[in-house]
């Protein structure tokens, strides 16, 4: 059972790191501000959440584990709100999203 928890937590930690790296790559390579927000959101929620769950598995049921659960909850609350606020501020300042070109018919 311990081995199972150990390896699962390692897998989750590696996945979390992978998603953080993917998010970073997305921020660099995506063409438009709003699509970059998607990439930033991946880092904040998915990457951080997987890392934290991996750590929770390693900490077990202790004070440290409970604190990690609380950190996870707060992170899941605040990251989407932050991303939303940034995108909304950009929209109100007049930054238009880059849309696909209209298809020509005929």
């Amino acid at each position, binding site marked *: 059972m311990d081995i199972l928890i150990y390896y699962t937590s390692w897998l989750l930690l590696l996945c979390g790191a992978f998603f953080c790296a993917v998010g970073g790559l997305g921020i660099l390579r995506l063409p438009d501000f709003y699509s970059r927000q998607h990439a930033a959101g991946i880092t904040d929620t998915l990457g951080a959440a997987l890392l934290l769950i991996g750590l929770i598995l390693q900490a077990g049921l202790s004070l440290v584990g409970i604190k990690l659960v609380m950190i996870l909850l707060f992170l899941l609350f605040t990251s989407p709100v932050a991303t939303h*606020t940034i995108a909304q501020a950009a929209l109100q300042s007049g930054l238009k999203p880059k849309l696909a070109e209209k298809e020509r018919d005929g």
Partner: protein
Amino acid sequence: MSNFVDIALLAFLALVALAVTRTLNLFATVALTGIYSLLMASIFTTLDAVDVAFTEAAVGAGISTVLFLATMALTTSHEKPHHHHNWAAIMATLITGSALVYGTLDMPHFGDPQAPIHQHVAPHYIEISPNEIGVPNMVTSVLATYRGYDTLGETAVIFTACMAVLLLLQRDRRGGNRNVMAVPDADQRRGGQSMQHAMILRVFSKFFIPLIFLFGLYVQFHGDYGPGGGFQAGVIFASGFILYTLVFGLEKARQVIPPRTLQALVAFGLLLYAGTGIATLVMGGQFLEYKALAHEATHGEHLGILFIELGVGITVAAVMTTIFFTFAGRGRS
């Protein structure tokens, strides 16, 4: 090669500092400064300085960023591009840098337990602090007891900074409602059409601001047993008020906590700290000798640390909030 994480983080730090130099857009520079502070906080954590990391994250990435943004709202958001390199400055920097690197060649290696800094005073404190004061967090015991004068002076410095900012930036309010807020609240931008969009932020803040204050109280009183203490708690409290101001507007925030009350609290915290010292004098000890406050020595120490940390927390929270209100209230007239 002892700590790969340490090495990588320090390299990132150097890169971010270079990016700060090269960026001309001040908004981007301030965001980079926030990243720099958070990286610094992570490095402090890997260097076992948990209290310092806490303070750096709260102060550097929180309050500093907000103050820079408030200043930029009142001044400008772009730096003028410079067309030629300043060779004198580069030469001065290189010469100073080389001299300092030459100086470090004699320094003890990183992590060396035999370094001179770890002899004499520090082992003495580490040995006797758990018994004499009974507080597990040695940084708190040194800060509040062994180096209590320094902390009193530091609280006085924060108080003075608040006075300086008030003197420089406080608008005369006798002119009625002349001061347009430099911080428009989330409803009033674009004539109210943002009402439903601001709702997410409003609901979120109403849910989270009490939690922020609760966490601030936890940090304040738990500073004896874990990382924490007056400074961190004061900054966290101030962040709660600043969040409220940013979402609901300066007028509502001024109704929630009137500036006069804030200024009274700024003075009260410092008075509480100095007053504890006077109380120890009255009880028969020396200035800030907490042993004199109670019959048993460790009990007196705990009581003394509690009062002065409370004083520091109140002053820091009130000062940071006052400074932010003053910047936000400067506005356009």
